[in-house]
Every structure is written in structure tokens, then in C-alpha cells.
């Protein structure tokens, strides 16, 4: 077993100039003396093991990119939504690839690389970066900063409405040595602006030896509207511990959608802070697991002020020898009256060797609120399977269709058709393949 944090501290990034260096210094202090094992002993890691992180030495960062041409080919074939329908930003092993990206932002939008930030941009970054991060300063947020070579600040200016989505592709490739990818974006929507962001995490087809530590920060100023998608399609061996933090000010709206196909260890922490009255958060998510995959979603919706609404629906189809962990928390702070908050987590468990651990949580400190949560772990309805069979559809196909329907219901909530179609295709493909494999979960 490698001591991941210890090794990381012994292999510091080369000294760079300016503010990133001071970020590294601060993170160094934050990481000193901490152990991965301390983190895994916490309630937050009750159902997920961090062993995979210390089985190989992930403590160094990626070497320079392989052939970009090769990547471009893979990219255009497999990743995300149609490139011509989006403004594309591509990161390879955590580093921004200008060749594969549309460097010129659309009107009213700014793309600022962390390593190039200066003047007013740097002030904005410093004012917001990490301020939404979790109060407990999870060791992985600290490590993200310790390893950070670059990142992207995206600003949508006041009252600007984007014509096309911004697509962010996070690509990892197999390298000679196992390595860590630290990546980060800070997205700020100025008052009254409107945008769609589509993030895809993916990898090349080779067996992966990367550990991705990603943080995405979303800042929605007054009246801003954001659709945010985060799709995990990395190859199975990839490790991922990521976080999405969102701050919503007055009348801001966040509609987010998470989709994960499993991996050796995937963990995503989502924290939504409702900081201004009239803010609205809608989160939908799906995880589709098989083989020995492990997926862990921890979400937290914090109602700090009155008159906000939140709705969260996550669904999972869990088979093989996989394990799904879901922890969804609604926290109503004192004084946050007239809150409407709902959360639902439904799972289909399709194998006796798979496991679902779910915990919807409510913490309520105000009385004039309407909160509800529900969780189920169950199976496909036998009557529905029968109904499809009476129409000539095979049992396997019936299960694929019904499983697809179970997840596809969430897509009715996706306003952007390009996104809905893309995600429909991923889900459909997954179930077609999953149920056609002989004896899979039967």
C-alpha cells in the first residue's frame, strides 16, 4: 500500500510563479500530517473504500500528452454531444488542449486559463475559488489544489444568453506510470445570464491507470439560469473522486443532470447552496452499474434562506457484483421558512451479488417548510414484464426496455433536446448491451 498523501507531498509540482504557487503552498499545509485512512474512517466514506487509491502509486501528475492527432480521432468519434453544436473546451489528462478546443469564446463569454489569469480576472478567481467548497475541507479538495497545474475560469457576462452549449471534455489516457489528474473549472454566471454546460469525463480505450480529482464550481448570480450536465463514461479501471459545488443567489435557477457508468471507484460529491431567496435547484441523476463497479453519489442541498425550492431525483440500476452508494441530504437552516424540498432515490437491484446502500437525510431547523424524501430498492415489475411478453417481446428485451424507461423518465425533465438525445443514446446503448450479454443478472 502506498501512502498517497505522503508520496504526494514528497513529489511537489515544480515551482511556478504567481498565485498558483501560493495555492500549492496553502494546500501543502492543509495536507500535512493527513492520511487517506483518516478520511475513510469518516461517516462520509462508510460504504466506499479508498483502498483502490493506495493500491498503485498515483502520487505523481501526468506526463505530457501523447499524439494530439490520435486523440482528436477518438474524440470526434466517441465523446459528448456533436462538436459542431457546442463551444468546446478539451482537457487531456488535466491539461488544457488548445488544439482540440475552440479557443475563441462566444460573444459575452470569457475563457480564462488559471495559468494565464491576471488583473481583474485573477481578482474574480481569487474572490470565488474554493469559497463554495465544503466546510469540512475534505482532504480531496485540498489535494486538488495541491496538484493543480491549470484550470479554467469561464464567465458569462451580465444578461448574456448563450446560443450553443459549452462542452467541456475531460479526457484521460493510459500512461506508462499511474498518475493523478487534478482538474478544476470555475464557472460564473453574472446576473441575468443563461448558459448550458455539458461536461463529459471519459478515457481512451486502454486500461486506465489514472486517478481524477476534479472540482467544478458553479456560481449563479441573481437571476442566472444554468443547465449543467455531468456525464461519467470513463473506462472501468479509472478512479474518480470529484465534486460539484454550486452557489445560487436570488432567483437563480440550476438544472443539473448527472449520469454515471461505473468504475473501480467513482465518487462525486454535489453541494448546492441556496443563498438567495427564490433560488431553485433541480437535480436529476442516474447510475448504471455492472461488473465490479463502484459508484458513490453524495449530494447535499443547503437551504440557507426562505422561499427556495429544491427537487432531486436519482435513479440507479445496479447489477453484476457492483455497489451503488447514494447519500442525499436536505438541510434546512434556521430561518429558511417556506422552503419546498424534495428528494427521491429509486434503485433497481438486479443481482444478488450487487449491493445498494442508500441514505436520504433530512435535517430541519425551521417549521414552516414542506420536505419529503423517499428511497426504494426493488425490482422491475413482473406484471409489466409479462405485459411486454404478451406483445411478443422477449424477457431480456422487456427488461432492457423497462430498465431504460425507469431511467429515461428523468429525461422528461431535460429542457435541452440535444442533451436529452445524447443521454438517451448512452442509456439505451447500455441496456441493450447489458441485457444481451448471456446470463447477465438472470
Amino acid at each position: 500500500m502506498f501512502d498517497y498523501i505522503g508520496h504526494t507531498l514528497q513529489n511537489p509540482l515544480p515551482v511556478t510563479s504567481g498565485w498558483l504557487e501560493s495555492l500549492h503552498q496553502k494546500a501543502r499545509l492543509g495536507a500535512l500530517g493527513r492520511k487517506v485512512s483518516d478520511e475513510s474512517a469518516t461517516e462520509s466514506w462508510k460504504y466506499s473504500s479508498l483502498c483502490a487509491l493506495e493500491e498503485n502509486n498515483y502520487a505523481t501528475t501526468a506526463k505530457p500528452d501523447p499524439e494530439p492527432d490520435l486523440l482528436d480521432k477518438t474524440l470526434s468519434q466517441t465523446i459528448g454531444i456533436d462538436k459542431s453544436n457546442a463551444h468546446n473546451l478539451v482537457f487531456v489528462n488535466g491539461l488544457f488542449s488548445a488544439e482540440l478546443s475552440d479557443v475563441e469564446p462566444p460573444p459575452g463569454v470569457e475563457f480564462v486559463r488559471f495559468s494565464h489569469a491576471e488583473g481583474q480576472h485573477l481578482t474574480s478567481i481569487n474572490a470565488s475559488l474554493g469559497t463554495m467548497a465544503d466546510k469540512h475541507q475534505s482532504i480531496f479538495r485540498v489535494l486538488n489544489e495541491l496538484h493543480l497545474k491549470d484550470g479554467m475560469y469561464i464567465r458569462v457576462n451580465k444578461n448574456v444568453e448563450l446560443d450553443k452549449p459549452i462542452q467541456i471534455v475531460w479526457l484521460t489516457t493510459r500512461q506508462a506510470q499511474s498518475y493523478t489528474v487534478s482538474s478544476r473549472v470555475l464557472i460564473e454566471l453574472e446576473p441575468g445570464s443563461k448558459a448550458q454546460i455539458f461536461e463529459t469525463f471519459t478515457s481512451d480505450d486502454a486500461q486506465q491507470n489514472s486517478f481524477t480529482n476534479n472540482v467544478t464550481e458553479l456560481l449563479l448570480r441573481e437571476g442566472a439560469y444554468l443547465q449543467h450536465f455531468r456525464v461519467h463514461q470513463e473506462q472501468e479501471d479509472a478512479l474518480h473522486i470529484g465534486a460539484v459545488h454550486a452557489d445560487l443567489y436570488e432567483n437563480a435557477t440550476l438544472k443539473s443532470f448527472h449520469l454515471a457508468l461505473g468504475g473501480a471507484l467513482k465518487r462525486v460529491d454535489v453541494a448546492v447552496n441556496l443563498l438567495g431567496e427564490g433560488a431553485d435547484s433541480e437535480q436529476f441523476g442516474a447510475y448504471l452499474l455492472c461488473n465490479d463497479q463502484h459508484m458513490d453519489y453524495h449530494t447535499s442541498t443547503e437551504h440557507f434562506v426562505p422561499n427556495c425550492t429544491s427537487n432531486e431525483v436519482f435513479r440507479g440500476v445496479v447489477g453484476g457484483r457492483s455497489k451503488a452508494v447514494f447519500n442525499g441530504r436536505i438541510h434546512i437552516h434556521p430561518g429558511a421558512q417556506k422552503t419546498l424540498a424534495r428528494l427521491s432515490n429509486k434503485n433497481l437491484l438486479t443481482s444478488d451479488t450487487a449491493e445498494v446502500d442508500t441514505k436520504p437525510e433530512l435535517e430541519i431547523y425551521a417549521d414552516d417548510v414542506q420536505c419529503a424524501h423517499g428511497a426504494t430498492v426493488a425490482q422491475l415489475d413482473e406484471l409489466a414484464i409479462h405485459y411486454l411478453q404478451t406483445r411478443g417481446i422477449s424477457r431480456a428485451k422487456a427488461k432492457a426496455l423497462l430498465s431504460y424507461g425507469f431511467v429515461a423518465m428523468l429525461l422528461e425533465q431535460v429542457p435541452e433536446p440535444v442533451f436529452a438525445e445524447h443521454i438517451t443514446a448512452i442509456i439505451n446503448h447500455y441496456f441493450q448491451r447489458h441485457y444481451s450479454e448471456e446470463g447477465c443478472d438472470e
Partner: protein
Amino acid sequence: MLTIKNLQANVEGKPILKGLDLEIKPGEVHAIMGPNGSGKSTLGHVLAGRPGYEITGGSIFFKGENLIEMETEQRARNGLFLAFQYPVEIPGVSNMEFLKASVDALQEHKGEQPMDSVSFLRQAREMYKQVDLDPGFLKRGVNEGFSGGEKKRNELIQMLMLQPALAILDETDSGLDIDALQVVAEAVNSLRSCERSIVMITHYQRLLDYIKPDFVHVLSDGKIVRSGDKSLALELEEKGYGWISEVE
């Protein structure tokens, strides 16, 4: 088409069918009537192969083959169709996806190429119009949030698309107003042919005014106790089901 001999079946361990005999030839339309709890719906489900409906004795041959040995979907692919009394809701799966999967499965069984999406869609839209439903329903989840009458019509659309050899309509008339009843009747009548048989399971003779049966059977306590022509249904209408037990 269908030969049932001495059929006995249990539901949740309780005997419901207790020695039922029925012979249906190609082109015939049969009506099966009877009081509540007589086993009418059970017969439909046993024929379709619903789990939990256990056959304990007797035989069923469909187009010369042993039906009991067939999986539910094989029965469907061989041309047996059951219109459910209570159609199942399948949220998230659209009628279009469902119908296409079903039509494809039957085509494949016949060794035919799957229908291309354009002609499939054109045909499906026609069917919706035929039963007086908005083709917009194609995009909605299967039976999801449909009214009782809409569900029944959705069943008929499936029947029209699948063109079964034997269609069993389980109380398709219940809960329909007179206009809807006529729509149902037209759809069923459009299917009538010398190669196709129809079984109508119904409580009331009303439907039989619109779809004229060749034979009427009265089911009571798991057995067919009377068989006759259309006049038997009228007699039942007049005298009620109490009269059956008196004859027995």
C-alpha cells in the same frame, strides 16, 4: 385454431378453472359471458401465460401446437393476443418504442426484415386515428396517465398493429360510453376474416350488438355450463345470471 380440453387452473393455490372445454375454429367469433368470479378473466390470462396462473390439468392446443409449453412471448409471436382488462402502465417507455419493439419481435419471428421507422410510424399514426386517439399519444409513456377508455383503445392499437391470429378481448367494453364502444367494435370488426378468430370476454351483452358472435358460452364456477348462439346472450340479459345456477 384453439382447442381446450378439461382445463383446470389455480390462481394463488385456489382452483378457478375446473374442467373447461372450448373449441374455436378459424374465422369464428366467440363470446364468453358469466357472472363475476366465474373465471372469465382467468381463462384469458391462462391462455396468455401470466405468471402465478398455474395449469393443473387438461390441455390447450393453439394452431396445432401445445400452448402450455410455450413462453408468453412465443404465444404472442405465434399470433395470440390478449387485450388486458387492466392495461399496465409503463412510465418512461413511449408507446412508439413499445410498439416498435413488439412489431419487430413478431417480424423477426416470421423471418421478415424489421419495418423501417418511417413506414412504421405512418402505420401507427393510422391506427391511432382509426381508434380516434391523438397520434401524439405515441410519444407518451405506455398507458401512463391514460383514462380508462384511452387505455382500452391503446390495447386495440396494439392488436391492429400485431394482426393476431387469435385475439382475446378481456372486458374491453367495460367502462366505455356508447361512442367509444362503436369505435372498439369497428376496430374489431375490421380484423374479422376467415383466418382470424376472436374471443370476447364480457359481462354484458351490449358489445354483442356491435360485434356479432357466432357462439356464446356461459361460464360458471370454472366451467362452460351453456353454449349457444347470439340468442343465449339476449336470454341472459333478460333473466340475469341467477338463472344459470337454476338450470344447473
